[in-house]
């Protein structure tokens, strides 16, 4: 809905700015009114929209699963239980296939990642303007200027969210590496391969990079895919409202991209889960 007073770049900018809550030196604790203010808030700021949708969807997932788990039966399952069991079974198969050590945390972790990331990605299929527009109108009731009310509904297009999850996984990898192999074993793994002990610095650089690339690739893959996907939805949305042909073309494109995106959001959730399992499996391997 690129209106006359809003240029295309403004529109895109608006869509890519988070609802940021933070301190400004001259205004105290406020929501940022534009991207510059958001940047000025520095590290001690919160993306309220990302966190809201992330937590909301996470809670939705847990409540849904918990409800089924409460009434779970070993007999004939109902429809909801059937569906949940299908997902649980799928995750369990993957964990069993890739994770050889014994750890009761990995499977629930994988399930949480898969379902949660999937739900967060799924928000990408909600028409890009719908929720931000509604939220802008809603905040307008309280006297805010809708053009400066930001709302990003897809948490996984926020690097904070993807890095947060990837870092959590990374810390788990470090924790289990040290727990299983011992500090010496872990340091040895980082320094004694692949060139033996005389190539220690080179080993450290190589292994260090490979270790650090894990959370980086994990989070950037998800973020990149979702960000690009959202960007395309935004660009397609720019086609609306000019004339009939462009609007129709936009409609077709949006539908086509949304259908293709169903694959991507599922795939990205799946990849995040599988890589987490694999990284944790590597952390549990004692023989290198």
């Amino acid at each position: 809905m690129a209106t006359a007073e809003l240029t295309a770049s403004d529109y895109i900018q608006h869509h890519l700015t988070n609802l940021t809550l933070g301190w400004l030196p001259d205004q105290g604790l406020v929501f940022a009114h534009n991207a510059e203010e958001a940047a000025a808030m520095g590290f001690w700021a919160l993306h309220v929209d990302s966190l809201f949708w992330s937590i909301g969807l996470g809670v939705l997932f847990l409540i849904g699963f918990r409800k089924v788990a409460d009434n779970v039966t070993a007999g004939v399952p109902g429809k909801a239980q059937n569906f949940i069991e299908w997902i649980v079974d799928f995750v369990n198969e993957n964990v069993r296939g890739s994770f050889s050590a014994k750890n009761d945390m990995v499977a629930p972790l994988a399930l949480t990642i898969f379902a949660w990331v999937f739900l967060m990605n799924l928000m990408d299929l909600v028409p890009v303007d719908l929720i931000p527009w509604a939220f802008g109108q809603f905040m307008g009731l309280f006297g805010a200027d809708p053009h400066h009310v930001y709302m990003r509904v897809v948490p996984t297009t926020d690097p904070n969210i993807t890095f947060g999850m990837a870092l959590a996984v990374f810390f788990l990898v470090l924790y289990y590496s040290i727990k299983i192999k011992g500090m010496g074993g872990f340091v040895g793994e980082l320094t004694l391969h692949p060139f033996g002990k005389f190539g220690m610095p080179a080993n450290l650089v190589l292994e260090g990079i490979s270790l650090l690339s894990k959370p980086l690739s994990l989070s950037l893959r998800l973020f990149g895919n979702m960000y690009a996907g959202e960007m395309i939805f935004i660009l397609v949305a720019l086609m609306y409202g000019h004339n009939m042909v462009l609007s129709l073309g936009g409609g077709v494109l949006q539908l086509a991209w949304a259908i293709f995106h169903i694959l991507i959001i599922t795939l990205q959730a799946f990849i995040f889960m599988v890589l987490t399992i694999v990284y944790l499996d590597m952390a549990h391997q004692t023989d290198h």
Partner: protein
Amino acid sequence: MNINLTLISQMVVFAIFVAFCMKYVWPPIMKALDERATKIAEGLAAAERGQQEQEIGRQKALEEMKAAKTKAADIVAQAQKRYNEVLDEAKRDAQGEADRIKTAAHAEIEQETNRAREELRERMATLAVAAAEKVLEKEVDASAHKALLDSFAKQL
């Protein structure tokens, strides 16, 4: 696109969600799945057992049937034998009874005959005496001539 506190918040939330999932979601569902797997395995085993038992039962039933048939044939044969025995006995009894009745009848007939003969003889004697009285025109002393009359009667 700024990295800020959101990142740490997300990490904390993530940890909480995983902990919740690990404690309240995964175990009951997994338990149910395992239980069902066990149930199904047991059910399959039971079905297998049932089939075997059915086979055994069928064999048993066949044997029973065979035994019953043999027994029935035995009983029929015995009954036949007994029937013949009873028949023979009855025949024998009937024959005996018939013989007895026949003997009794013979004896009676004999008796009757004797009695008739005796009566006839006595009548003859009386008749003869009467005839003789008529002939002699005089009273014959029956008692005095009894021996004579008796011998006379015997010759008749």
